């Protein structure tokens, strides 16, 4: 008898399951006859931005009757998942992403062009450029991000140093335990954070053509790159020791927050951690180490449309009509404070001195390359910087790295 009992329970359970499945597969009636349909737009987002997109999505659903299904993902996973799932037809219609995904997306053939129409005039040019690949716009940019010099005003006052040497001198005069902390991601290396100093020696990672697009010609070789490598070695662990591979993101922020370090180079995402213990900060452009303007990477975040979307019209309309409004852009900013690419919102928030400082730094910046070749550069570039900081022969290590990069990108 007990066997029969379990059998019946099992059957009952599976029946319920099956009923659930079949119930789920019947399309739910939604919308009105005049509007859209039961077809839903699938939008990938990360947890931070979900609430803001939700607000725009509700307005869209109310007006068109089209449901928007938000799928929350880890931001780090979006690049690969989008590339791998769109060709199989399982991908989303729209995803949030960084502009440096663009080259890989184009090479994989997973993104569609976007016609921003009138909205283009409302968006900062640098953001549009970042989402432009080979003369075509492939997304809807909405936020910029860059790193800047953050100083502890309790230690070194309000004066923003213009050069590296000034900065170190002022920190030493103030008696700070460490002049600055700069993240090297531990032993991994963080060429992204160092890039402002590198460009001040005139050694860009890739040469830009006259229109500002990156070519696949490596610009890190030659005198500029060697000068930067020498400088890095001189300030590394074997030199004066300001730059050390014992600093990773968390250590960096803790040391600064505790008042141990007078300066750091960080992005807006770290401000909360940097001021967690109540130090007062001022944000300003990165000081020059090599005489030229220190130009950090500017990253742009935005929305991409899948090339395999079955709702291309709806997806484009959602971006260019519903997200391209002051209210939607303000909601995005409030949900996840990044420098807005939407001009009117950018003007609104520029009154905040911290935001203004990051904007000033971004004005010096250069877009982070989005060409697919960049994917082969990071690892070698990071590793070479770590080796130089740890005391390897700067010029030799650097030139080997440049040769390796050239070989890797073919």
């Amino acid at each position, binding site marked *: 008898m007990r066997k*029969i009992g379990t*059998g*019946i329970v*099992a*059957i009952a359970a*599976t029946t319920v399951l*099956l009923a659930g499945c079949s119930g789920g597969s019947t399309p739910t009636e939604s*919308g009105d*006859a005049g*509007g*859209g*349909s*039961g*077809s839903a737009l699938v939008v990938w987002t990360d947890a931070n931005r979900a609430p803001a997109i939700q607000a725009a999505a509700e307005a869209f659903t109310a007006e*068109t*009757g*089209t449901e928007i299904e938000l799928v929350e993902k880890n931001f780090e996973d979006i690049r*690969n998942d989008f*590339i791998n799932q*769109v*060709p199989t*037809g399982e991908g989303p219609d729209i995803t949030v992403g960084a502009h*440096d995904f663009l080259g*890989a997306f*184009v*090479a*994989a*053939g*997973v993104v*569609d*062009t976007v016609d921003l129409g*009138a909205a283009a005039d409302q968006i900062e040019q640098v953001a549009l450029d970042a989402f432009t690949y*080979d003369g*075509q716009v492939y997304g809807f940019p909405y936020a910029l991000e860059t790193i800047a010099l953050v100083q502890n005003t309790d230690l070194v006052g309000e004066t923003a140093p213009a050069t590296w040497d000034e900065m170190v001198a002022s920190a030493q005069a103030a008696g700070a335990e460490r002049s600055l902390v700069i993240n090297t991601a*531990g*032993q*991994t290396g963080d060429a992204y954070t160092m890039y402002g100093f590198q460009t001040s020696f005139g050694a860009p990672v890739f040469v830009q053509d006259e229109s500002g697009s990156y070519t696949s010609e490596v610009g890190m070789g030659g005198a500029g790159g060697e000068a930067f490598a020498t400088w890095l070695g001189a300030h590394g662990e074997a030199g004066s020791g300001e730059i050390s*591979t*014992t600093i990773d993101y968390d*250590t960096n922020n803790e040391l600064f927050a505790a008042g141990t370090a007078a300066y750091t180079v960080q992005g807006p995402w770290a401000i909360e951690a940097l001021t967690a213990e109540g130090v007062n900060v001022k944000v300003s452009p990165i000081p020059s180490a090599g005489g030229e303007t220190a130009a950090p990477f500017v990253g742009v975040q935005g929305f991409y449309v899948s*090339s395999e979307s*079955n*709702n*291309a*019209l*709806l997806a*484009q*309309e959602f971006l260019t*009509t519903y997200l391209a409004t002051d209210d939607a852009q303000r909601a995005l900013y409030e949900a996840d404070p990044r420098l807005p690419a939407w001009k009117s919102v950018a003007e609104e928030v520029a009154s905040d001195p911290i935001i203004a400082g990051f904007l000033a730094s971004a004005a010096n910046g250069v877009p982070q390359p989005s060409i*697919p070749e960049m*994917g082969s550069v*990071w*690892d070698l570039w990071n*590793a*070479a910087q*770590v*080796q130089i900081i*740890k005391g390897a022969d700067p010029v030799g*290590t650097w030139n080997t*790295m440049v040769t390796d990069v050239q070989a890797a990108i073919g």
Partner: protein
Amino acid sequence: MSVPQGTVSESAPPPQTPLSAAGAEPHGRRWNGLGWGFLVKLLLMAVVNAFGLMGIFSAVQAESWVIATAAAVLLIAADVVYFTKRALPLKYLLPGLGFLLVFQVFIFGYTAYIAFTNYGAGHVGSQEQAVEAALIQGERRLDDSPTYPLAVVERAGEYGFAIVDDGEIKAGSAEQPLETVGDAAGSGVPTEVPGWNVVPRGTFLGDTTLQNTVVELRVPVSDDPNDGSIRTRDGSSGAVYLSTLTWDAEAQTITDTATGTVYEATDRGTFQAADGSSLATGWVVNVGFDNFLTLFTDPALLEPLGLVTLWTFVWAALSVIVPFAMGLLFALIFNDPRVKGRKILRTLFILPYAFPAFMSALLFRGMFNAEFGVINEFFFGGANIDWLGDPWLARFAVLFVNVWLTYPYYFLVCTGALQALPADTLEAASIDGAGRVRQMRSIILPLVLVATAPLLISSFAFSFNNFTVIYMFNSGGPAIPGAPYALGATDILISAIYDISGVSGGAADYGLASALSILVFIVVGLISALAFRQTRKLEEYQ
């Protein structure tokens, strides 16, 4: 509660057929008629069939023919096995075999399939998708084109666009270039188009097929194709676009009409021009043994991978031997009845094992930090020892972490094995005059090994692929100078595969990573098989 009056059931139980009777069939064959059991089986099989058919239908809808075929074969096999009177062993084995096929064989087969393709950055879809991508990338909006209010119109089953331009309504279809059909009432979207029926937006937005028709519709501006054509992105406005790339399916070429360059489809999955330049998007093709050859011939990859392979073997071997030796030593000590408070101490020993490896590795990473870590501060008097940056120190550190994580396991296992040792054998040995060392060598160790050898082998296989500790502790760093894919001194093969598959960077190469996975599988499989054959010899001691 009162006990119910009356007797036990009057009906006698049915007479049992004596099992000793010669020629009696096994119970599985003695089925006659439709008992309860059969009904339950019927219902269960109905459920299995329902699920199976659902799977087959969805696989067919998704056009996954391999999965559909496999599901159909499995379902037919299940029905045959459970409704035949024969095949009794299979009735027990089939569920397990099914899982083996789905979760082991299929995964391995799929990995093998990927290993022979160039699936990775720039090669993810079919050729059709690559062509589509090229056409998307080659179609540009004319710089001087205004944005026109646009309506989708229809005439005798043919769809077209109607736009408002300078107060005039112009309409046309794919075959019929734009022509003026009337005057616009306002500057908005045309609502009445003479000669055409306006299709309401809701109609084509709600119908995926129709929506795709609208997306793909191009209405030429004039008879000259170089003037471009009207295209809509949102269904309510249009602009003039001009496509510069044309696809010739016969010749398998894409031609750039602006420059005259002809891109030919190559067997490497790219569209390549005569001057060596190629279009951005490629597609997945079979490349034969190229990925395997790359592993052994590409000098940039060969040396780092060789180092990684050597270190993997050292790491796996030491990750088994050292913790086992430590565990056995502690087990021997704490098995001695003279030790006080053995239970509490044994419990304390389990702590590292009970701690999640993820967390431990991350904590140790901080503790080994050269400048701020407690290890340098407490144990080395504040010396600046670069635990994480020096290749050999990093290897030592990560081994130390893994030993700390795994020796309690062996402590547990060996304690169990020691407590199961036959006391009379040891007594006999000591009467015969065997000392401690002799007893250890000739009796304790062999008997403990009989119990633990299979565990040691599985532990070797596990350590060989212990991604967690390596990745969490130091991400495989410090980097080997000049190695591609961020291969590092503490990388083992599995974390090298992770780096090569480009999950974190932008340059993914799934084909290469799959080829490497297969080699790792073969190595681990061979070592395990050989080791299991060796352990049979140990059992002679019993």
